[in-house]
């Protein structure tokens, strides 16, 4: 993106220079402070997509609440799904401080206009998938969100700090669940391995396209929204998770995976055609996920009406 394209009509190069100097000094930008229209637009885009992902993320795991193998696991999963709802709320709030409305954001999700992370369009085939999502998907999310916790926009970075501390619980319970299975019977080990085979590549892909193919990265880095590139975050994710998965006795479904001289784990080529097919809804459960959200929204209409009627009845008369 060129310099000229980022300065919108009505904005001056001096305003941009002062703004970028603030970013350089490591200052947080707060609602009410001057910011380039493009900074605001990019943040609303990112934060609302992130919020939608949290909300849709409840679905693949929510399906398993009734089928959890023990009461303890059921309580854990309910707490986790409730967290995802809370994370959506933190994030919608952060986007609202930029002038987006909650209603418009929800409309965009329900109408299919807005994107969310394609990772949630993969089906959960077995109970072990629930654990693998906790370990790999939440593990990848934490890597990304820890980076975003340092971002330049105050409300987004604060939401990320809260979210990361809760995601750490999701990560650990998933890891515990999978390691338990990996140490279990042959059948349980196979379940854990099958789940890893299903989720390994999607988890690597959820950190986004390679840096060379990532259209928004330049401006996001310049303005301190993203502090690391997709490939850097992916590398961190690999270096942490590969040794742990191997230690658990699982094998990673990538024949080209190896450690380089610096000790970094290197993956084989990623099949991005599969990623884009899922993003576009040509593969995976995009339609089913949206239909479930729309149904839930419709089914909740009577609650919203009842709340409004109650509030109107009990409001102090002026």
């Amino acid at each position: 993106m060129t310099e000229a394209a980022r300065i919108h009509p009505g904005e001056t190069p001096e305003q941009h220079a002062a703004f970028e100097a603030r970013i350089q000094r490591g200052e947080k930008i707060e609602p009410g402070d001057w910011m380039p229209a493009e900074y605001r637009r990019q943040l609303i885009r990112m934060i609302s997509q992130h919020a939608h992902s949290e909300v849709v993320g409840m679905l693949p795991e929510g399906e398993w609440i009734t089928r959890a193998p023990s009461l303890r696991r059921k309580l854990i999963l309910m707490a986790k799904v409730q967290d995802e709802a809370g994370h959506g709320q933190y994030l919608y709030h952060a986007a609202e401080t930029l002038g987006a409305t909650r209603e418009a954001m929800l409309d965009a999700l329900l109408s299919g206009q807005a994107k969310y992370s394609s990772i949630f369009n993969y089906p959960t085939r077995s109970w072990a998938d629930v654990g693998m999502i906790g370990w790999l998907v939440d593990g990848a999310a934490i890597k990304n969100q820890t980076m975003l916790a340092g971002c330049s926009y105050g409300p987004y970075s604060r939401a990320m700090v809260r979210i990361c501390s809760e995601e750490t619980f999701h990560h650990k319970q998933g890891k515990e669940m999978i390691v338990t299975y990996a140490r279990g019977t042959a059948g349980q080990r196979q379940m854990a391995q099958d789940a890893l085979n299903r989720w390994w590549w999607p988890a690597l892909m959820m950190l986004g396209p390679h840096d060379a193919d990532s259209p928004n990265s330049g401006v996001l880095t310049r303005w301190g929204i993203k502090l690391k590139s997709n490939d850097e975050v992916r590398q961190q994710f690999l270096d942490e998770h590969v040794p742990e998965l191997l230690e658990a006795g699982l094998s990673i479904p990538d024949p080209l995976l190896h450690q380089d001289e610096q000790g970094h784990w290197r993956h084989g080529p990623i099949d991005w055609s599969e990623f884009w097919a899922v993003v576009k809804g040509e593969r995976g459960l995009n339609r089913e996920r949206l239909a479930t959200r729309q149904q839930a929204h419709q089914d909740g209409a009577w609650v919203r009406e009842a709340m409004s009627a109650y509030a109107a009845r009990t409001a102090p008369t002026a």
Partner: protein
Amino acid sequence: MSAGPDTQWPRWEVFKQDGPGKRHQAVGSVHAADPQHALYTARSVFARRPAAVSLWVALAQDIHAITLEQRQAGATLPGTPGPAQPYRVFGKASQRRAMTFVDDLGTVEAASPQAALEQACERYGDDLLVWWVVPEPALHRSPEDAPSLDSWFAPAQDKTYRQQGSYGLVGRHPGERRREQP
């Protein structure tokens, strides 16, 4: 995004107190039909884990917010004098990393939000990065008597399955493994 009629419930800002003697901090917002609904929703969203003993909510429209940058550009809060009343003032003092919130500072008695802000600047320092000024009657609080406080916040204490510490360490710590690498 579609431009339908705005039928959403009003937005309430939520202030959470982590422990006795700590300051209430602005932690985010909820949409709710009335103050009680806002407090219940705030509890579900922001107090799912321990470290909460009190919540306040205030309608977003009742909060007068101004940043240092806006003040330096000459902006002010509404200044038309009305009856003198207590205003709660909140401020953000630091740019250090992410964990800086808009924190409760105290109460001033003033006839307008601008007059409250000026008093607050005198009392708490003129260099704060963000100020929020809220008329006291606009703040709605979670119950403060011991039994209901217990029923509001104690249940989160027992839910050990929500804490990452309940899951122990599986395998070795990543830091330990990193230190071993050449």
